[in-house]
């Protein structure tokens, strides 16, 4: 089985939840469909959704909630 990474499209802060008091979008081990939101990147106070580009199973999140990330940095690993 091939694993691939979902990378951050933008530099900014990575969030795994839609709001601080909400549950995370996805957990390690969850299955995702292409287009599912797995997190948010906050860049200069605007929020951008990060979506899975293919269906599969999330092996693990590499970036932590509220972690500063650079563009191209891996956020999660997916098993297709």
């Amino acid at each position, binding site marked *: 089985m091939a694993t691939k990474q979902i990378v951050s499209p*933008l*530099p*900014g*802060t990575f969030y795994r939840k839609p709001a601080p008091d909400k549950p995370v979008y996805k957990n390690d081990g969850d299955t995702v469909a292409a287009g599912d939101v797995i997190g948010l990147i*906050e*860049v*200069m*106070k*605007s929020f951008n959704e990060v979506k899975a580009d293919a269906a599969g199973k999330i092996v693990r999140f590499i970036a932590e909630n*509220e972690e*500063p990330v650079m563009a191209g940095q891996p956020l999660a690993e997916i098993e297709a």
Partner: protein
Amino acid sequence: MAIQKLLIANRGEIAVRIIRAARELGIATVQVHSKADADSLAVKLADEAVDIGPPHAAKSYLNKDAILSAAKATGADAIHPGYGFLAENAEFAAAVEAAGLVFVGPTADSIRLMGDKVAAREAAQKAGVPTVPGSQGRLETAEAAFAIVEKTGFPVMIKAAAGGGGRGIRVARSADDFAQLMPQAQAEAKAAFGDGGLYVEKLVEGARHIEVQVLGDGRDVVHCFERECSLQRRRQKVWEEAPSPSLRQEARERICQSAVALAKAVNYRGAGTLEFLFDDLTQEFYFLEMNTRIQVEHPVTEMITGIDLVREMILIAGGEPLRLRQHDIKRKGHAIEVRINAEDPSKNFMPHPGTVAALGVPGGYGVRFDSLLYPGYTIPPFYDSLLGKLIVWDEDRPAAIRRLDRALAELEIGGVQTTKPLHQALARDADVQAGRFHTSWLEPWLERRATSLGASSAAAPAVATAPATPAATATGGQRPMTTRYSFGGDEHIFVEVDEAMSLEAFFKSLFITNAVREAKIKGVTEICPANASFQIKYDPDQIKPNDMLAEVKKLESAAEKAEPVIKTRIIEVPVYYQDPWTHETLMRFRERHQDPKGTDIEYAARVNNLADPAAFIKAHSGAPWFVSMVGFVAGLPFLYQMVERKRQLEVPKYLRPRTDTPKLTVGHGGCFGCIYSVRGAGGYQMFGVTPMPIYDPSQKISYLRDFMCLFKPGDIVRWKPITREAYDQAVADVDAGRFAPRIANITFSLAEFNRDIDGYNRKLEGALNGN
């Protein structure tokens, strides 16, 4: 006790501003910063710097304990909070004072009082300052509501007490309206929120935002006149100025006196701003809220009064009484500030952090640039997008706007998209120049111009939808062109030959790209001319970016000396104007058009002062058009009418773009014509269709066998109006492989063209008949 060492609990341009003021007062500075700001300009300028935590503001700039520890460790005796972050946090102000330090701002009690909307409104009323008329609290009965509107007059807003965020708001414009809406609103509020309580408040339509700057020392208060900040997007100020262009002297005195009365009533200390809604028709104003801190737009007040507000607030915090009496404070001239944000105005203001490749800072008399930038600085993505503020002063408002436009042209922030094009368009807008705007003015204006505010690239044609500017109306090369170069990564050079489209600029760009092609420079992989600009793609392994740039500059100076003559083609394009297919489409999207009751061509005739569609067709097909660029979608030619700038047809684009346009539609937006090479979305006006395909990726059509696109930049188009019969015949001929476009090879001389435009055009068209 004068301050000896000041800690700045903020970042960005305001931190730089505070460090400068402190240094001039002989005060040492400590800059606290997050890990992401270690190489910020403020850190470089300050005497000392302390890392207070991770990039996330909650863990650094909002971390009160970390900031207080940094103050203790460095021996700072005062903290300046700037704006935002902890500037209006009463607990922080109290904690600073409890730690035995000076808080550069008002007391914690003042912050608390003014931060509570209801308490602030009550304080205003007690001080005799007008607030938006309406009910003091919730209204339970219809009788009580009627008693209120008798006093406020109409229109009024009816708001659900339990609603919020705009929900449950109704507008009543008359007593009849009100009688009908009130019970409805009550029933709805009860159903939606389980609470039928309502508020009623006067609706001030087309209101402006005016604010008054005050300085206080806890005993006395003076005002430094007003600022107007009505140009806002999503409640964020975009352009601020002083004095207000809409406030009459008598109202100015009243509003400033009100501000002083309220600030005195709360024993205000430091610099503060009282915000008002202002109705320019009645010259009435209503207190909204007070900001208990220095504001982003404070420089415009400094420029018209000559008072350094940040210096004054530091002196006051150090215990000095106000140095200024009201009669010492005079205003002179006009100042404007525009916010330069790292946002792309052509892409819905998408944030654009990045590295500052080059920095050109405007200068000259009456120009000031307060920013966080230096060349090579990487703008972090974690904070707001304000990069700096360009502030200009001149003797009156029209002169200040001209100076702003001049200074914006000098401002260059390479490598980052900014709001500079927005401000250039605003400075050239007739309504802005006349001061005709209010707080809801900018957003619809932006919607109409969504894509035309790009700095460059594929969206460039729409730049022409901006109204004619002094630059755009100049022709014949009286005005020197200013060429700009920028790198796109290490594979592209983008060159803007001039700021505005003109035949001269187009020619120059065509010349340089032809020269680049002929020079056969090793490593060049693609050459793309576009209107008044061009882009060159190259392989950085074969030629270094700086060497490529040097080559282009060399060819550019050669192009300037060359006689502007090109060998090109004139192509006849048959057009069936006012055809049924574009008509069907334009009717389908009518609600997106400026004139929902008419057709595109009727509207185009009217805005060009032509009697009717027939007169418009005559003007449209009466002169040839240059293909200034091919692209946007494959094979689509952008066309520039070959007449003097003032005679060119100009039609704005649709208010909102369509999702459909028939293939081969002859369109128009701004001063550019086009032919839609394929079916698809579009925002240009639609005048007709051509039967002649101009793009064929299968390369089966006889005249598109060698290359799938008919047009290339530099081609000249001659429209030929045709009837339905001729259209049908041409379509049949195309299908049968019999159709051959009428094309003639010609030589075009810009100098000869400029000597006798109409005569030269007739000569060009004659070539189609073998003359």
